[in-house]
């Protein structure tokens, strides 16, 4: 078992890069608040999705269970962004 060849390692590297982009890139003053917030929460939802699929092994779970869990990051990100745009 070579750690470097494991799918979870590739996913982990992607999650690390995405976190760095969000924390030390998108959150800075380079972007307008709306672009930054949409980007930050979209990336967060994608990260959660990959944690579910590859770390939690939901990729091979029964379809209804996988669909229910995969809906969570979509609903949460949409709810947060909905509130954000509704806030004066």
């Amino acid at each position, binding site marked *: 078992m070579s750690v470097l060849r494991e799918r979870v390692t590739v996913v982990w590297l992607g999650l690390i890069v995405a976190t760095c982009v969000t*924390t030390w890139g*998108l959150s800075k003053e380079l972007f307008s608040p709306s672009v930054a917030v949409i980007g930050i929460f979209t990336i967060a939802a994608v990260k959660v999705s990959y944690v579910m699929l*590859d770390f*939690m092994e939901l990729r*091979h779970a029964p379809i209804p269970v996988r669909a229910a869990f995969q809906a*969570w990051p979509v609903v949460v990100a949409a709810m947060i962004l909905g509130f954000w745009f509704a806030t004066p």
Partner: protein
Amino acid sequence: MSTLSRPGTVTTSRAVPRRLPGVDGVWVAIGADAVIFAILFGSFMQARLHNPAVFEASRHTLNSSLGGIDTLILLTSSWSVALGIQALKRDLVDRAPRYLLGGVLTGLMFMVSKSIEYFEKFTQGIAPATNDFYMWYFTLTGIHLLHVVFGTSLLSYLWIRSRRRAYSSLQRVVPECVASYWHLVDLLWVVIFPLLYLQKAA
């Protein structure tokens, strides 16, 4: 644990049986916890809606770099535990303990990081009663920290048992349950971090 297809389940094109790791009950608990946190996130956003200026000013007092490092720590922890499960599936029972220990140590690192953060806040005179933002900050991070403490304790138990070669490809129900819970702890932080630390005002 069942590695066989359950009646009525669908298989992939490669005929990999579809299954949930661990036992179904754990997934009910994980799902319920995820829904509760989603409600808490919505409640936080509703509170922010009524007082955005206070939330924005308070957010600036948080250390976003430390929060980002916390995220990197938990993602690494999840990865290490996932490797431990992969090792068990392949009966590499000598390797599993080191990966599980990686999960324990990174869990402890997160606790130390959060302790430093809380200490900083308290020395600055910031407490849950300071304002609504800090009430939510301490509530969300505090409940999450309790999850981390519980998960790290479970991982420590797994590590000790795995050193005694208690788990293998045929005996991995408990490790899979704990790992699934630990990944939940990770993904909750993936949302809590931007919610509290990175969410700019419009």
